[in-house]
């Protein structure tokens, strides 16, 4: 807080909301010109995205636009700047359309910017703008406190709450998960970092799919987690959550022996833990998971499974020459309508060309048992881009008890301040 805040004049906030409602109505009046393409408004949910800065909101608007192509929604992107001296609420309304079967299929995107004391009332503003009878997902990007009335107001309206431990922390996620469980009717909690882990979990589970290796799952002797960071960095949320997932699935308990972490298996055996780092190439998120190696021994047979991300191997497909059509480019147009005019903003060619880049890295899965050759498989991590990640998160079943269990375990690990060598 930097000084006294100026109050918003009475009625000013409701006037902004009324103007948003008017603009929304005007978006869907019949086209002025008979030649204009017909547009269909489609809405399957309310998608509220809460950001703590203008920059983050700017960064997230294209993500939201892309997500609404596959999950048509009324998207409300909110910038929440409570420390601002000025008190103001501003809004901007657009139709975000993509061509499906010769028709423009459109979602609505509302941007709200709340400055100063009006932030306390932003929950009420958002509630007034939700489409009734449809589920609401709240994406909270930034630090979260369960005592924060703004958070409580907004989260109480939602059926699903999406956090990202990249922006917040595993501890915050744990607090929110606890808050959500306290009373029935509170939203189910999801984490974008947890969604990023889904391919890792799936591929790790494959180590023990073979019937003769099922028992090996209960006899893991060591696990190594490598993350992309400098040596000595704290264990990131992806690594911690993955360890939490392994431990809760396999019944491990954490023990500390001579300052190093180990896990105790249900049969009393010990699981050695190695936390290490690899160098982080440009473009790879800090503390991103880079490698997992699991060794298990049962009945005299040793099984070694490794999963290695080829960091920054994301593929760029060379764009076709100018003038030629682009494959599967997300052609999104943004349309605004006010009392005077209608404008369309087709995306720039440059943006479209960038959209042809597949930016997910390859993951190499390898299982070495007692055969002359190890089984190897290479898959592409599918959910690294912001839009795909959010889309996949929203498509998952809302209730995920495994997340809660893994988060509780990971929090315990992080409290110990684990670092990677």
């Amino acid at each position, binding site marked *: 807080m930097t000084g006294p805040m100026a109050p918003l004049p009475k009625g000013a906030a409701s006037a902004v909301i009324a103007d948003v409602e008017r603009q929304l109505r005007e978006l869907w009046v019949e086209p002025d010109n008979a030649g204009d393409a017909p547009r269909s408004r489609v809405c399957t949910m309310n998608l509220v995205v809460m950001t703590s800065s203008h920059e983050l909101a700017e960064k997230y608007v294209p993500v939201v636009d892309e997500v609404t192509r596959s999950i048509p929604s009324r998207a409300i992107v909110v910038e929440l700047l409570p420390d601002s001296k000025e008190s103001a609420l501003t809004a901007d309304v657009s139709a975000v359309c993509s061509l499906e079967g010769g028709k423009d299929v459109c979602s609505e995107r509302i941007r709200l910017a709340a400055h100063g004391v009006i932030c306390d009332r932003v929950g009420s503003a958002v509630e007034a703008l939700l489409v009734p009878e449809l589920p609401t997902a709240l994406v909270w990007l930034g630090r979260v406190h369960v005592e924060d009335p703004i958070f409580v107001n907004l989260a109480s309206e939602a059926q699903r709450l999406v956090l990202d431990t990249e922006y917040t922390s595993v501890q915050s996620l744990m607090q929110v998960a606890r808050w959500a469980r306290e009373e029935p009717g509170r939203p189910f909690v999801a984490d974008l970092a947890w969604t990023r882990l889904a391919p890792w*979990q799936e591929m790790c*589970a494959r180590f023990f*799919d073979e*019937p003769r290796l*099922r028992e090996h799952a209960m006899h893991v002797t060591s696990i190594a987690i490598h993350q992309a960071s400098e040596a000595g960095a704290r264990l990131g949320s992806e690594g911690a959550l993955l360890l939490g997932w392994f431990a809760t*699935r396999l019944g491990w308990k954490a023990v500390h022996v001579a300052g190093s972490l180990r896990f105790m298996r249900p049969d009393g055996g010990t699981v050695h833990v190695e936390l290490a780092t690899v160098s982080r190439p440009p473009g790879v998120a800090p503390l991103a998971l880079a490698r997992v190696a699991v060794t298990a021994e049962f009945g005299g047979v040793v099984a070694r499974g490794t999963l290695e991300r080829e960091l920054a191997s994301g593929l760029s497909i060379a764009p076709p020459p100018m003038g030629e059509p682009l494959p599967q480019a997300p052609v999104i147009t943004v349309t605004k309508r006010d009392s005077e005019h209608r404008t369309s903003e087709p995306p720039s060619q440059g943006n479209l060309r960038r959209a042809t880049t*597949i930016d997910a890295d390859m993951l190499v899965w390898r299982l070495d048992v007692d055969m002359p050759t190890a*089984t190897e498989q290479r898959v592409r991590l599918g959910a690294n881009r912001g839009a795909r990640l959010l889309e996949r998160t929203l498509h998952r079943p809302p209730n995920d008890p495994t997340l809660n269990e893994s988060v509780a375990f990971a929090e315990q690990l992080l409290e110990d301040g684990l670092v990677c060598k």
Partner: protein
Amino acid sequence: MTTPNPSKNPLRSGLIEDRTGDACAVVIFGASGDLTRRKLMPALYNLAVGRALPGGFAVVGVARREKSHDAFRSEMKDGVGQFSRRKPIDPAVWGDFERGISYVRGSFEDPQTYADLKGHLDQLDVERGTRGNRLFYLAVPPSEFDTIAGGLREAKLVRAKEADGAWTRVVFEKPFGEDLASCRALNETIASVFDESQVYRIDHYLGKETVQNLLVFRFANSLFEPIWNRQHVDHVQITVAEDIGIEGRGKFYEQTGVTRDVVQNHLMQLLSLVAMEPPISLAADAVRDEKVKVLRSLRPMERSQVPMNVIRGQYGRGFVRAEELPGYREEPDVAPDSKVETYVAMRMHVDNWRWSGVPFFVRAGKRMARRVTEIAVQFNKVPHTLFRAPDGGITPNVLALRIQPDEGIQLRFTSKEPGQQTILRDVAMDFRYGTSFGSNTPEAYERLLLDAMRGEATLFTRRDEVEQQWQYIDRVFDAWKHEASAPPPTYASGSWGPDQADDLIARDGRRWRKP
């Protein structure tokens, strides 16, 4: 915390994105054919892109032509490039997928082919980790099934059910015979080698998202199921219409006709899904038991009743999408006096508690006005007209479930036009899959191949279903055999079928939809 259970993989407990096939080798007989290039290989590649293929995986093509592994891979890459929904090909994913593709040349009659195949599969178990699991896909005409099944058995390539933890499954597609007798013979051939639990009969309609959604729509919404019966439903129409003709398949069509090609399988499957009772679970046999009950409840037609309940047609010249097109008898490889039906309309009755007295009007045809597959449930008229209604009274509500194209659900109801007067107008609430969920949904073959790899048989037809379908349709064929040898009535290409089909439904005081 979950209690680990080593009889199952404990890391799969609570895993949300758990749709991976078992490690296996998929062996495609007839690998040089169009089905492999256009459908099967693109579907498998799409599964690889979606990380749904297991670590231990291989595809083996078997066909007569001499071909190297590399030549086969190259052909398959070309097919995937053209027909996959995931374009362009991702070189890194393709590179990994391609390493698992191989080819075995041989005649299906030659025991050496199976010996070579066995040796190759044993080697793949070691090199690719396919664990002795085999999914045999018979992409060949049914006349080859006997030979291939025998060859597999003699070479000991078929293991008993889940022997040593390894499994063997066989997948094949329609036609499942050409009548009840040939269907039973085919099933006997298959049963002599495979247990029914190892048999996966594909009706690719069941792999379509919208067909699967039928169960969700009916049994996950409390609004419709209470009125899904004779008290509220006037009649049901099922339409499978294509705007194309026989597309150069004259020889095939002359032996088949639309009744064998579409009605006996796809259309009767749709009917059974619409009319079935809620299953006790989604387990394969629970769902298939209920479908079979519907098929058993179909009122059999006596020979004399067929002309009153079944109308055939054959397309003549006409216009489709403003193009003038020839009639069926002018098509290549079609007899100039052919009596083969390219259109059929039927009135069917499901004689059970729920549907007694509710007619099911079904029709299927080539070269019709539009390509559309839909199920339309027409509800009863209101019992008393309060409002000044347009000519013909207030239109009944219709719920239309659109299977293709523009998959979705539409509910038609009556509304008041704005103004001082009470003027009624039909309006529609329209839900479209493509616009609500995006259009990049998995193709039917992706779902079905993955289900077969996972041993989930719900979306495959069981022997008794297929035989029950033929039993019903055979009576129609029997009546046609004994009819005077007049050709089926002609309908203009681009129309909705012959006038006699309109008469069939008009006799009941109803009329066909023009979807």
